[in-house]
């Protein structure tokens, strides 16, 4: 039996969806782009003063055409991430512009070398089924910052990638990079290696940038992950149930736009909902209520049979300390018990403002524990205990039993040295994680990429830099 956790009753989910459909009609959804308005009007949706009033029937028709599951593929063309059912995967959190410097313990602007290090570490940790374009490289041209991150990740990883574009104009170049990587647009559609996070703006606003990304992804057949991020009490109703309702409406609106543009294209019911801190105005990503929002939002998506995503395993602490460990481990376990298909956020501190590769290594241990937990307790063998007692009586010599040796590895998760279970006094988690980072980087091997593909990558980066009016040195 797979252990699971459920926060919402079926009745509450029904109410949430009922009100979400109501919201899509009244007050409706703000839509900012002319092509989106055209698309909606072509589907007989009334759009007045930039606000679309979307009928439930249309949304339900669009929901029906969404694939219930799909895969992301690695560079070798093997399916490596399954979006669907209760399968759970993790990827590092993404998109911040700072990293925690191990030596000074201060946040500093993230650079190409930092992204490379994060990718190298995540590549060697099996807990991360996918990479993410984890940090913006502030030493690369900002105008093509989104594309450049993906370029760096593709050069250094074989794993699937969770990414995203910073503008409507930035996306085509990123899709070109991915198509080059896998051998063409059609292959990319058949065996996508990346999923793109696309975010509505709360409340109920699909901006020009977000909605154009949705349309372009749907048409290219590249998976989109709708990351709606209501802040309970700030940009959404203060109640958790109210925020989950707004989240559902925002994602449903996104799915409608997406499926109208490319029926049958893969799309994920994702999110980064959080509560709103009433003292600081920040979004506390490590709060238990934030985890509850992510769980509940995923439950609503799962009730519709959708692939799901959430933002967990992050902390509000400014360093890799006890708070960071507690908040991140707690939400990793809660997310896994919910069966969220892709859980982003590992490695992130300071409420998603900063990345720490040491924390990524620490979080990998929490994730491993979460995976162990969801495997549950199985009855293996003909007997549970009597067979073993039949062999050794009351001698207590369990360590010598063949069964012990044969099964302890599947019964117990054996942590890395980052977790202190040793006999001798050890230094703290951060220091051990730092050693873990160094060890993983030392055994990292760069992917084998042909010279032709590398040249094409560089050509795309240079072309996009020229388009954006900036210079790039490769």
């Amino acid at each position, binding site marked *: 039996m797979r252990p699971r956790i459920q926060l919402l009753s079926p009745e509450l989910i029904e109410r949430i969806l009922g009100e979400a459909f109501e919201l899509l009609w009244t007050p409706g959804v703000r839509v900012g782009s002319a092509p989106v308005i055209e698309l909606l009007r072509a589907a007989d949706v009334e759009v007045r003063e930039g606000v679309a009033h979307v009928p439930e029937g249309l949304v339900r028709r669009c929901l029906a055409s969404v694939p219930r599951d799909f895969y992301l593929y690695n560079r070798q063309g093997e399916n490596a991430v399954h979006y669907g059912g209760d399968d759970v995967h993790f990827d590092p959190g993404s998109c911040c512009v700072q990293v925690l410097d191990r030596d000074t313990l201060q946040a500093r602007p993230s650079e190409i070398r930092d992204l490379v290090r994060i990718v190298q570490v995540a590549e060697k940790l099996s807990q991360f089924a996918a990479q993410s374009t984890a940090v913006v490289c502030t030493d690369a041209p900002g105008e093509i910052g989104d594309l450049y991150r993906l370029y760096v990740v593709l050069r250094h990883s074989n794993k699937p990638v969770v990414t995203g574009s910073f503008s409507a104009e930035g996306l085509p170049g990123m899709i070109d990079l991915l198509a080059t990587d896998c051998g063409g647009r059609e292959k990319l559609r058949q065996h996508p290696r990346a999923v793109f996070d696309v975010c509505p703006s709360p409340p109920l606003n699909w901006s020009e940038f977000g909605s154009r990304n949705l349309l372009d992804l749907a048409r290219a057949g590249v998976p989109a992950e709708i990351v709606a991020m209501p802040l309970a009490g700030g940009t959404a109703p203060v109640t958790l149930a109210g925020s989950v309702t707004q989240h559902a409406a925002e994602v449903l609106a996104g799915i409608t736009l997406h499926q109208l543009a490319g029926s049958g294209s893969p799309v994920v019911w994702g999110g980064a909902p959080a509560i709103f801190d009433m003292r600081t105005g920040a979004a506390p990503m490590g709060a238990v209520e934030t985890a509850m929002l992510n769980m509940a939002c995923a439950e609503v998506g799962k009730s519709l049979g959708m692939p799901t995503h959430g933002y967990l395993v992050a902390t509000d602490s400014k360093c890799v300390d006890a708070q960071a460990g507690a908040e991140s481990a707690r939400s990793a376990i809660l997310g896994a018990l919910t069966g969220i298909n892709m859980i982003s956020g590992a490695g992130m501190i300071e409420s998603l403002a900063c990345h720490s590769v040491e924390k990524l290594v620490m979080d990998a241990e929490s994730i491993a524990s979460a995976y162990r937990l969801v495997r549950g307790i199985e009855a293996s063998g003909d007997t549970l205990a009597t067979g073993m007692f039949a062999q050794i009586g009351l001698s*207590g010599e369990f*360590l*010598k*039993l*063949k069964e*012990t*040796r044969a099964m*302890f*590895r599947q019964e117990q998760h*054996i942590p890395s*040295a980052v977790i202190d279970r040793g*006999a*001798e006094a050890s230094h703290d988690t951060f220091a051990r994680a730092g050693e873990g980072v160094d060890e993983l980087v030392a055994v990292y091997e760069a992917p084998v990429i042909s010279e032709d593909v590398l040249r094409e990558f560089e050509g795309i980066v240079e072309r996009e830099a020229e388009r954006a009016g900036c210079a790039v040195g490769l």
Partner: protein
Amino acid sequence: MDPVFAAMRQSILEGAPERAGELARQALGDGVDPLEAVNQGFAAGITSAGEQFGRGEMFLPDLLACAEAMKAAVKVLEPEMLKQGSRREVLGKVVLGTARGDIHDIGKNLVGTILSAAGFQIFDLGTNVTPEQFVAKAREVDADIVGISALLTTTMAGQKAVIEALDRNGMRPRVKAIIGGAAVTSKWAAEIGADGFSRSASDALELAKQLMAHGEATV
């Protein structure tokens, strides 16, 4: 490495007692010197297993399986060694027991198994052993090392009592006293005048080897 010895070493590393026994019998049939078979074949496996355990590449059940395989091989080879008048070099004689009042013996048993597989001769007195019993056995077998295990803070005092008894009987410093157990610390070991302590069974092997080589612990 000679392929026959390599296979012996491998049988130990795989923790395969049947295979180890079979290789030992084959060796005898082929006229291989049984002492050579132990030293160059099977014991090399145990040494390597200990190293792998120390590096975290092998786990306790694996290590015990290796020790069982070693035992199976030695059992086959020993009668022939006796017949030839040769015997496996004994690294040292170790009297083991759990302190008076303490019946927890997993740690002590592990130490015994690992030391035995490595070539120490073990005299295991079991659990709830009095200082007098430790002294009597150590004298009887002319022990090099006395190992006293205690899990509980309440029975750790029993370790001190054994060391005092060894002192009273004039057996130290020739006989080395080592201690172990969950609550035992280097501070406690120093306080009661122990010759050494280790936190794990694999470390105990290193400790025992050092005591035999140098008369003192360097770890």
